[in-house]
């Protein structure tokens, strides 16, 4: 009994692939094996490093603001001047035109309509976008794992109720649902028991995004659990006296962990994108706090004369999402090489 238990628990990714895929060298655990495969995927590692670099840069925003730009993300400098090539220039002209990139410390990437330093806002905006993306992913993964495992394990009435709730959320277009929730909660905030969030708290869009993506993770988990609960090792645990909670925690969860790991980068990328979309539409991060989405929105009306206001945050958004997505694909391939094979087969069939 103990042997079965430990084998399955430790070998979560391999349990599904015991009869397929590359043979597992003796003495190497499945995660170490996945790491070895990931190391060989240079493209994934490069994009992972790119994402990591963006994260580090964004985390350094306060240092940049204090020691290089000497201004905060929301500090207005409308009537101030800055020296460019020894010449004093208006940060914002009398007709409202903001200064472009100076390519040195202050206003490195220029200013926005309110004379705020774009580079500082870009880094702080990145922090906000990544923070929202990270928290939203945490919310999604936690709730989706619980819902997916409980629904799949108990089946019947519990599954029926939870699955319908997931269908209900799924039935709404993600962006529309996000806008509806974001707009209403931005005014009143959220109060759940003792937890009260103000309308302009970053946790509000994080919570909204986390909730709207639950079905996208919970449904595949549920499907996987429906198969796992019929496996012998679950029966063995049940015969051994384990209750439902213990079985879900000790037997089921380890066996869906590789799926969860694959979902994490995907959900971070989706959450960052949705945050940008909601913020662009005014239902995400609330002004004057920057996020890449709000910065793009703010820059729209100056596109003809100050394209950098939209281009710079847009480029950062693309790079961050591309980085985490490609890295996520690499993680998926490393954890489940069959998935890549299946994808390639599908692609070949489609090309025929």
């Amino acid at each position: 009994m103990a042997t079965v238990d430990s084998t399955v628990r430790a070998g979560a990714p391999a349990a599904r692939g015991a009869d397929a895929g590359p043979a597992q060298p003796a003495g190497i655990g499945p995660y170490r094996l996945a790491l070895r495969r990931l190391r060989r995927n240079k493209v994934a590692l490069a994009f992972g490093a790119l994402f990591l670099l963006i994260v580090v840069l964004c985390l350094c925003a306060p240092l940049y603001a204090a020691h290089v730009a000497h201004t905060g993300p929301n500090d207005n400098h409308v009537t101030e001047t800055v020296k460019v090539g020894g010449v004093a220039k208006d940060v914002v002209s009398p007709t409202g035109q903001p200064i472009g990139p100076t390519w040195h410390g202050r206003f490195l990437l220029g200013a926005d309509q309110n004379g705020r330093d774009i580079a500082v806002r870009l880094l702080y905006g990145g922090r906000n976008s990544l923070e929202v993306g990270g928290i939203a992913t945490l919310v999604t993964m936690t709730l989706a794992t619980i819902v997916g495992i409980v629904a799949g394990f108990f089946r019947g009435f519990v599954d029926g109720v939870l699955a319908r709730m997931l269908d209900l959320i799924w039935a709404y277009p993600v962006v529309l649902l996000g806008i509806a929730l974001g707009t209403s909660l931005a005014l009143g905030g959220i109060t759940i028991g003792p937890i009260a969030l103000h309308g302009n708290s970053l946790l509000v869009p994080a919570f909204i995004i986390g909730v709207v993506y639950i079905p996208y993770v919970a449904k595949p988990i549920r499907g996987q659990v429906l198969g796992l609960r019929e496996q012998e090792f679950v029966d063995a645990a049940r015969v051994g006296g384990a209750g439902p909670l213990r079985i879900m925690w000790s037997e089921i969860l380890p066996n869906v962990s590789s799926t969860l790991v694959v979902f994490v980068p995907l959900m971070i990328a989706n959450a960052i994108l949705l945050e940008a979309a909601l913020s662009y539409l005014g239902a995400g991060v609330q002004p004057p706090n920057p996020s890449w989405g709000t910065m793009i929105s703010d820059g729209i009306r100056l596109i003809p004369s100050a394209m950098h206001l939209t281009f710079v945050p847009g480029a950062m958004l693309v790079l961050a999402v591309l980085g985490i997505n490609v890295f996520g694909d690499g993680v998926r391939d490393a954890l489940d090489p069959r998935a890549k094979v299946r994808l390639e087969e599908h692609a070949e069939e489609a090309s025929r």
Partner: protein
Amino acid sequence: MRVRTFGATAVAVALLTVAAGCGGGGSNNSTTSSGSSGGTAGGTATVLMGTAPDYLDPQLGYTTQSAEPDWIIYTPLLTYRHANGTSGGQLIPGLATALPTVSRDGLTYTLTLRRGLTYSNGTPVKASDFPYTIMRAIRVNWGGKSFYTNYIAGASAYDGGRASSISGIQADDATGRITIRLTQPYGAFANVLAFPSSGLVPRGTAMRNLSNTPPPGVGPYKYSSVSVNRGFTLTRNASFARFGIPNIPTGHLDTIRVTIVSNTQSEAQQVLNNQADVFDAGDTLPPSLLPQIESQASSRFARVPIPSTYYFFLNVTKPPFNNAKARQAVNMAIDREAMVRLASGFLKPTCWFLPEGIVGHPGNSVRCPYGTTPDLAAAKRLVQQSGTAGTAVTVWGEQRSPRREYVDYYTDLLNKLGFKAQERIVSDTVYFPTIGNAKTDPQTGFADWIQDFPNPSDFYLLMDGRSIQPTNNQNFSKVNDPHIQGELNRLNPVPATQLNSVANDWSTLDQYTASRAYVAVYGTETMPKFFSNRLDFGAAVFHPTYLNDWTSLQLR
């Protein structure tokens, strides 16, 4: 009893004092739209608006976006001449046969309804529709209803549910005679009768918001379709021309299509490229397109100053702005030059509540009580002294540019002063109803006021304690100052024809208001008149209250 008539000439003389700020932009000549200019009759024009009207119901609308169509769809008993500049402030008879006769004590106004009028749906217009219209404006809680409830006898009782009708209005359907009795003289009461909210609707019109299916009116145009928050269409009201009402043009275009474009960049670009015809004057041209517009479209673009006040309201009933020092600090710290830049130059800095062009404006020779250049250090000290530092402040604002930028700047300023400020940005369409709702009870935020009529009492509605109401409130600062109330009681009854005699009193009152820092005024607006080259730019009237006069639009 001697009977006094509001003569057009007399009113015009009084309005001469208003001239200073109403000209400019090459469009302050006094041509009316009925003048021949060689344009083409008929056709369709597209008007773009950056913000949807607050309501399309005449008894609810109170923004420039709703006033523009309502003015030409719902003609009140009295209205304004369709002319540029100061001439546009001249009252003329609308559905009434003449300007009202006013009793010597200034308490009774008598008018007579024109005969043979019908609404756009064919229903005959009756004198009794007038009291019903006023009752409807009160019942649906129009933002300016205190103009009625403060002065018309019985209106307050009707508002409070203590009466089923307004005892002070008598209407005789047989003769068309309408008599209005006031509780106290109000010099600008004739102007109140010219509000679009006083525009007649048939008796029996539902006492609820009918913005989706606006009621019929009497005017050169009528609503033919409404798509909520997306746009609406006006078509010519064929029956109106038969009435032959002098000085109210019947319009040139057959159809005016109004489209809501939330992006002013796109709005301006479409007009610049002649894909649409009118850039709504209530919107601000994006700074990125301004040089292009001024160089490529100089023949169809003008900046027109309008008597208006742009300010941040400071709710005196809630911390921290129930503390005078906190309010003074805001006034002391605000950088009006910064606001001008945020407005792309379409703002003239001022600290006075009464704008240039309105009798009582203190003028540039009078020193602002808190200086004209910002003093952040002194303002911070004031906040410290007031003991309000660290107070959480929610700053309310609109989404559209540059109002969002104003609020961004203001929020940063409050944080620099030592408050803990955060923004709450609301959709433009619902902004004023939201902040005017007692349940919201906002601390501070953006507000503006464009003249309803050329009289300081119009602006001082916003400082009148009696105008505080539970919904659609306009006195956002909730000012209820005994000194202001006393002065309003003394100055409001002065007839429009004698306004100049009390100009100094209004000026003194405005200086008092500025010294009390009930609001933080930062500028008066210059508005864009910007058309496509399909329209006859020179013939189009830019009205000082209703902005682009759509009856004057005509294709080249």
